[in-house]
């Protein structure tokens, strides 16, 4: 079995999509909560004009983790003209909706309203936006008791961000294959982050930060027949992140700061709240990851390759038999899922 096939299996094991079976409960819950919020906001005089999924499920870069909650990241949008002056008002309404539905731990955080539903392993984030006729969004920012100085409708471009991540040139050769590879690389790095860092640091290495860095630094690796080489793409992309961009800046000897600007207005720094300690760990471990991946590329024994990859990605990366890569363990034959395919072949 090729290493790429192992990466494929790894990806199959970690990827999470909104239509996945495991996500069914979350999706149904999401739909039902959204429906309740729509009703409530209508009653309150600022009807919901749109709602959309945000985050990794919207950019198809979600991953699953054993023992971790499924995220619901649902943006609720109201018309700017009807929106209450105080951004906390609609957030309180959402809080009430959640509490009425039995969420005990629902709370208003600075960018959104959150709640956990332990029985179903759900974590819910609901940001509220108001939207102007010109298409500009503003996010309701502030906690429950924030005073005027600490609450605001803050300019934001949530749709643009999703579009930016999802955008690719379909006219480019293997454009969609390259974009698929991009998403896989983001997922690999997210799994690496979750596997490598403790809870505190992990939370501060934001997924959107990884998605933006990878997108801006991406080096695809697809051969001329469309077969991907994820190891090469991953190595070259990490190398680019570390050595050809200025995300990590040296602040003193061996200490770094990380700065990744959002690619959409108002282009705030995704890592503005990250400490030097977080940034330094992030950079050093990313550098160590690259070294390991380079070793994998130089290694001839497939079993050793898999061992190295498991050391950075965890056990979801498949095991390999202890044989050389030239006589690797058998590939399970996968037959085409099409009954018939039209071909251009003649003689």
């Amino acid at each position, binding site marked *: 079995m090729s290493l790429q096939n192992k990466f494929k299996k790894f990806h199959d094991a970690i990827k999470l999509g909104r239509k996945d079976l495991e996500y069914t409960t979350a999706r149904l819950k999401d739909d039902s909560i959204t429906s309740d919020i729509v009703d409530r906001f209508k009653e309150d005089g600022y009807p919901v004009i749109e709602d959309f999924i945000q985050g990794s499920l919207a950019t198809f870069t979600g991953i699953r983790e054993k023992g971790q909650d499924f995220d619901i990241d649902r943006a609720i949008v109201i018309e700017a003209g009807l929106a209450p002056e105080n951004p906390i008002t609609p957030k309180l309404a959402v809080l009430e909706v959640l509490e009425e539905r039995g969420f005990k731990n629902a709370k208003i955080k600075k960018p959104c309203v959150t709640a956990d539903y332990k029985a179903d392993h759900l974590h819910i984030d609901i940001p509220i936006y108001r939207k102007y006729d010109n298409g500009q969004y503003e996010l309701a920012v502030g906690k429950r008791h924030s005073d005027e100085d600490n609450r605001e409708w803050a300019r934001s471009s949530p749709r643009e961000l999703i579009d930016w991540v999802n955008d690719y040139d379909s006219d480019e050769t293997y454009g969609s294959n390259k974009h698929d590879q991009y998403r896989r690389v983001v997922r690999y790095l997210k799994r690496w982050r979750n596997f490598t860092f403790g809870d505190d640091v992990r939370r501060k290495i934001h997924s959107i930060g990884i998605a933006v860095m990878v997108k801006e630094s991406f080096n695809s690796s697809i051969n001329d027949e469309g077969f991907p080489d994820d190891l090469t793409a991953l190595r070259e992309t990490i190398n680019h992140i570390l050595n050809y961009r200025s995300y990590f800046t040296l602040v003193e000897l061996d200490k770094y700061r990380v700065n990744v600007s959002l690619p959409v207005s108002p282009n705030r720094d995704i890592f503005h709240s990250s400490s030097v300690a977080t940034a330094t760990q992030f950079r050093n471990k990313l550098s160590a990851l690259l070294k390991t991946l380079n070793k994998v590329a130089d290694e001839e024994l497939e079993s050793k390759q898999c061992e190295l990859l498991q050391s950075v990605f965890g056990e979801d990366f498949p095991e390999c038999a202890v044989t050389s890569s030239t006589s690797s363990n058998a590939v399970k034959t996968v037959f085409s899922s099409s009954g018939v395919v039209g*071909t251009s*072949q*003649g003689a």
Partner: protein
Amino acid sequence: MNYSVILNHLNDCGYKVSAIPSKTEEIGCLTVELEINGLPVSLSHFIVAELSKMPSFFLANPSAFPRPAHTAFYPGSLFASICVNVPDAISVNFERPELAFEESLKRHIDLINQALSDSEWNNQELLREFEAGWLSIVEQDTTPFLCLTESEKPEELCVLKPRKDQLGLGQYFLGYSEGSVPKNIFSPINQILKDRKSSKGIGFFVPLSEAKPAPWNKDELADWYLNLLSELPVDVLTKLTQQFAQKRSYEFWLVFSARTSSGITWFGIHFSQKKSGKGRKTLPFKQSHLTEWLLEPVEVLTFNKDRLMPRSGAEQSLLNKKVMIVGCGSVGGDVADKLAASGVGCIDLYDPDTLSLNNLYRHILPPMYVSFHKSQALWHSLTSKYPWLEVKCFTKKLVDLRRRELLREYDLIIIAIGAPTQERLFHDYLINERINVPVINTWVEGYGIGGHAVLAIPETKGCLRCAYVDPADFSRGLASNLNFLAPNQDLTKNHAGCGDAFLPYTYIASTQTALITADLSIKFLLGKIKESSRVSWKGNSEDATVNGFKLSGRYHAFIRTLEVLPLLNDECDICNE
């Protein structure tokens, strides 16, 4: 051409050149006076209107010299021509002719100088160029003599004279010794033998142990012949003078073969009686008898594979190779022709289809074969084209050829049917039954977009399935991942409903595909390719795009047209078992 400039230039170069006027021109001829090896030598150039070849100089009064190699002259002529180069092997500066004259003169002088001063070299050259020397005395309108005998002993020959109005090989004299012509001789010759059965003449074949220089001019032929007889080994001479001399005729052909440093050379002399009224006579062996005969030098050709195959670009080592070609359409038919032309000795053709007028332009076969099975028509066509080729034809389909014992007979199987389903079924059979026979699958794509050939050599990495992996999920692809057109498009056209649907591609496209296939085949059969390989050629996308068809990603990414690339695909489930 301005000969004054040339004249001045050559004189400036230090040559002693003078111009001689002709009746119509101020300068009709240039003469160069030299002294070579103590002998006065005069070279002459007769003016030409333009330089379409290197300017030539003639040796004046050739009889005054010992015979120099690379010269020829007609009896009674005052000049001998000098051959200093192969005409097409040079490109002449006609824009500055004086430089071409300078170079040409230098080469002429160098040659004459070497010929007159180095007798050993001169003799070797006279022998090496025997054939050229012989042909220089053969009259231009003399009919060549094709000798079918390749014996090493003296033999009597039956000579078949050409009939009037015959073309090609039919206009040659044909000579063979009784019983020496194999039954399966090349069909066009067989046909001539049949046609001319009744018109036999008499000839003799005499092998010589070594050659001596050809006569310098035709006048010397009789003496040259007598001298040759005097040097024959006793047993050969005895056979000639006693056995052959029993025959009487108004004319004889004597055919000789002799070894030279450039190989075995063949030549002949035609003897015809000056006065036929005196009755038939025996072949003359003496000066006194020769006076009654007219001797004419003849060009002799042989039907010899050791000579003709390499000379015409075929590889003799392929004669013992046996190839199965399944599919005799535009691609397969052309592959068969190209393999035969390369020297492959044994080809079995399989195709259940018949040739129709719809095949006319892109098929190698002419319309005279319409309604014939393609394999049978191809058999007929190849048999009359390639002398040492053994062809058989069959009408079975690929799926009916899943027979171990049959398949193991072949050095190579070429599948050119453009039907991926049957090709994959056949491949499964080979894999499951562990039949280790090398196979090439080849196909052309529509609209001139390209073509492919995939060579799977058993015991090496790579198989047909390596070209049928779906890059999206590494599953077994139903269409090849080598294709330049995206799958699932209705590419066929039809003029008369379902039964008439066809994939549009041109003769150029099928020929190009046949070419990469034949090239891959020959390189494999010659042992130059030892690993499973693939080759693609990529054409222009204009026709496909204009017709609204989508190209594959590979079309855009592929830049290695005609390169032989490794076949192994890391994602192939069979090769990575």
